[in-house]
């Protein structure tokens, strides 16, 4: 782990500082969210240099298109996660990436990713791991496909061979179970 003290701000302070284009804002943003965003990116892109490039692009895009974020429409993280996910998906779907990378099959990196990488130790999140473990396999797979693999629900329905309505229901049930932990 790093010896450097990580910068941390409240979401309101952070949004204000980002709007004012303060240097500290992007540093705090990186310290607070890089691991969560890299978690999303690295599950979509298993190739480390490519995933790192996408993380970099993500922060550049967050910084430059910050005027497009509106706090009324949702949380900062939701907005950033969608940017990271979209950039990662664009990357794996781009022609030259397909050509050069030895793409693994989706199933290979969805479920076993946590064994391959060091996930961040967060005491307040202890217990959620067990909770995720309690999800039914079909709930976990839909969550992984849609949340981490960047599948649209239509694509996920095709991949899993289940109707659209079922996909939506499973996704909702999976998230509802996760939510109970925080309530």
């Amino acid at each position, binding site marked *: *782990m*790093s010896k450097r003290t990580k910068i941390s701000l409240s979401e309101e302070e952070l949004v204000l500082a980002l709007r004012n284009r303060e*240097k500290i804002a*992007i*540093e705090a943003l*990186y310290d607070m969210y*890089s*691991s*969560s*965003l*890299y*978690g*999303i990116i690295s*599950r979509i892109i298993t190739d480390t240099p490519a995933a*790192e*490039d996408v*993380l*970099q*692009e993500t*922060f*550049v*895009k967050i*910084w*430059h298109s910050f005027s497009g974020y509106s706090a009324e*429409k*949702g*949380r900062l*993280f*939701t907005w950033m*996660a*969608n940017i990271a*996910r*979209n950039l990662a998906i664009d990357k794996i779907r781009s022609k*030259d990436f397909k050509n*050069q990378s030895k793409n693994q099959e989706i199933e290979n990196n969805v479920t076993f990713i*946590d064994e391959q*990488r*060091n*996930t*961040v130790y*967060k005491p307040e*999140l202890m217990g*959620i*791991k067990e909770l*995720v473990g309690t999800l039914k396999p079909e709930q976990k797979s839909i*969550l992984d496909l*849609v*949340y981490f693999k960047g599948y*649209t*629900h239509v694509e996920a329905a095709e991949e899993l061979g289940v109707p659209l309505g079922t996909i*939506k*229901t499973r*996704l*909702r049930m999976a*998230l509802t179970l*996760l*939510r109970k*932990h*925080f*309530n």
Partner: protein
Amino acid sequence: MEVEDIKAYIESGILELYVLGDVTRDERLQVEAMAAKHPAVKAELEEIERSMEAYAEHNAVEPAESLRGRVLNSVLTNLGDDSIFDKSGESDKNNIVVLTPAKPGNFYKYAFAACLALLIASGIALINLYNKLQESKSQIAVLQTDRQHFANQVNFVESELGVLRDTTYKFLKLNATPKAPAGAAVSIAWSKQKHKVWVDMASLKMPVNDQAHQYQLWAIVAGKPVDLGVFDSSPDSTGMKEMKTIAAVKTDAFAVTLEPRGGSENPTMDQMMVIGKF
């Protein structure tokens, strides 16, 4: 909308897809409208967002420590560039050189600048030309005035010469009375047939009159004075001056008196300066 309907809307799973960005534009607008209208929908959205954020934290992967400096540098060195950072490592790996087409945006920018410069240059040239035109016009006006002046002068001299050539004119020198200084004299020309009288201003030998007075020429016809007009005496008077027409063909004499400026109806006899007869 009924409470049940809102519940059904929430249960449909659309809010989860919205948070994941997996909705069409219409669906997105619909969710945003619903959230603005129904607090229950907004609260549900918050919950979903928080849980997804927690899920991401749970699945967080710490990026390499060296990446922090690289990412922050690329953000801060790209301050002026709004486009997404171009994949840094990519070009080294790729031997294919992408030929970017010339940006049309630049062409129009330069074309516009060139047009603007041309417009300004044209404007300046036009103003210069206009000024020169005005100058020429005023020169022409001056020349025309001059020409008119000369034409008038030629006409005048012609008519003076006409008097001298015309055999019907007779010349008469009016000599000084005791009232006038010695040597005072006025020469006149008279044509009976043409009823015209001229005073030869060039040979005028009269004291210079003041601003309040003028000399007046009279013809004495059948013992009565007839007004023939006024004239001034000045050291630089030239040419001949045509006086009023005279109807009479027979005169006793011609005389000049000094009168108040503008002339008088009857001559002031004690101010008679010169007199002469044919």
